């Protein structure tokens, strides 16, 4: 848990795209019931099979972690984990 706490404190400084990806990979674990090998091109709905309710729950977890609000407007343009990582990085100055 100490590691998580440290990571939360450092989240504002975390600017590297790979760090965002790694966070998303970990946060997606509970939803990845087929144990897919996740990559930046993995699709949240088509591959992992997130339901619309799970998408919203997952987005809330990201929002809480980075202390940001993710506008619903970006969702139509986000299919893959990589696209989401880039959006979150944009929203977390």
């Amino acid at each position, binding site marked *: 848990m100490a590691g998580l706490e440290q990571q939360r404190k450092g989240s504002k400084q975390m600017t590297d795209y790979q760090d965002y990806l790694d966070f998303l990979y970990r946060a997606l674990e509970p939803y990845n019931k087929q144990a897919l090998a996740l990559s930046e091109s993995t699709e949240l709905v088509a591959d992992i099979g997130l339901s619309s309710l799970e998408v919203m729950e997952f987005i809330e977890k990201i929002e809480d972690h980075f202390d940001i*609000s993710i506008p619903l407007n970006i969702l139509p343009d986000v299919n893959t984990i990589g696209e989401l990582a880039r959006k979150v990085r944009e929203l977390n100055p």
Partner: protein
Amino acid sequence: MPPMLFDKFKTMAAFQAELAARQVAPFGAVTEELFSATEGVVQGRRVILAGSNNYLGLSWDPRCIQAARDAAARWGTGTTGSRMANGSFAEHRALEREMAAFYGLDHGIVFSTGYAATMGMCATLAGPGEVILLDADSHASIYDGVRLSGAEIMRFRHSDPDDLARRMRRLGERAGQALIIAEGIYSMLGDVAPLQEIAAIKREYGACLLVDEAHSLGALGATGRGAAQAAGVEDDVDFTVGTFSKSLGAIGGYCVSPHAELEAIRYCIRAYIFTASSSPSVIASTRQALRIIQQEPQLRDTLWDNAQRLYGGLRQLGLPVGPAASPVVAVEMTDQINTINCWQALLERGVYVNLVVPPASPSSNFLLRNSVSAAHSSAQIDDIIAAYAGLVEAGLLQPAKAG
């Protein structure tokens, strides 16, 4: 085969086929005859109507029926035009004045449906570059409206003022331009929004607040204005929207506001401009119903007595019905087929309720949604409870597992 236009409807077609095979038709069940505001024939069965949203029973009030008759004789059956063109009759203007006066305000707009009122206001008030914060469990008319608005849309967790406050803080100086949207009574589970807390956040940041009182008009507040009146925060509400299709027993929608700008906003609302206005008979019965809810506050007391009676009865059966009594009492279920079977069994036992499936329900749960009316007799409420008890006895509803 290349993908076809209709492929995306296959899942819905399969679901409908499954319902047809089971010989149940919960969606769009046909009402073949009505005997009163609370009894009719639905799909060949004489039933108590426990899913009508007819909270005060006014769709069957003889005074409202007479008003509609007189207006049809005087004005004809329809306006055949938009409010912006030939469709503003004296009746529409009168109802706008009366609706605003009912709220103690100066400005009001009447729309052809509640959907048009809410969707139209949500689509128009905020635009590109501005921010809307809406409750996650908002009605589809709110979601559809904000999507059309072009504004940045953020959801806060359902009825969670702390989450709303966090999101307002994150907005920085943009918070003062934000539009916050909440409902009074939420339509599916019957829970009431924490409007005191939401209004306090609105005040703190100088934002705008829109409250949808569709299910709370006539049901809550000292004079029936809704949840904001009950919470004592009406002064913080910039725009109240609602419908005539529930407690007022007709169809149509409204927006009232203390802001004089509403008169200019009116001409920017596409859902107001590009549709025909309500038939004069509908407006006339609505005006009469509005008079009745002001003259007969005891209707509200009867509604709540019935709500308590149904809620208490279902709770006593051990059914998962939510934390507090409300004119909407929903039994939450987890299994789709079981819920459908219960819906059908209730119909066969003489009770019509609403079957609600996601995404209309706010979670992945399925609902047997009951709505109570002041027009229900105590005996009818007891019959509804008895029908549920019959389902429990038959092993269709298992209280222990139902939650």
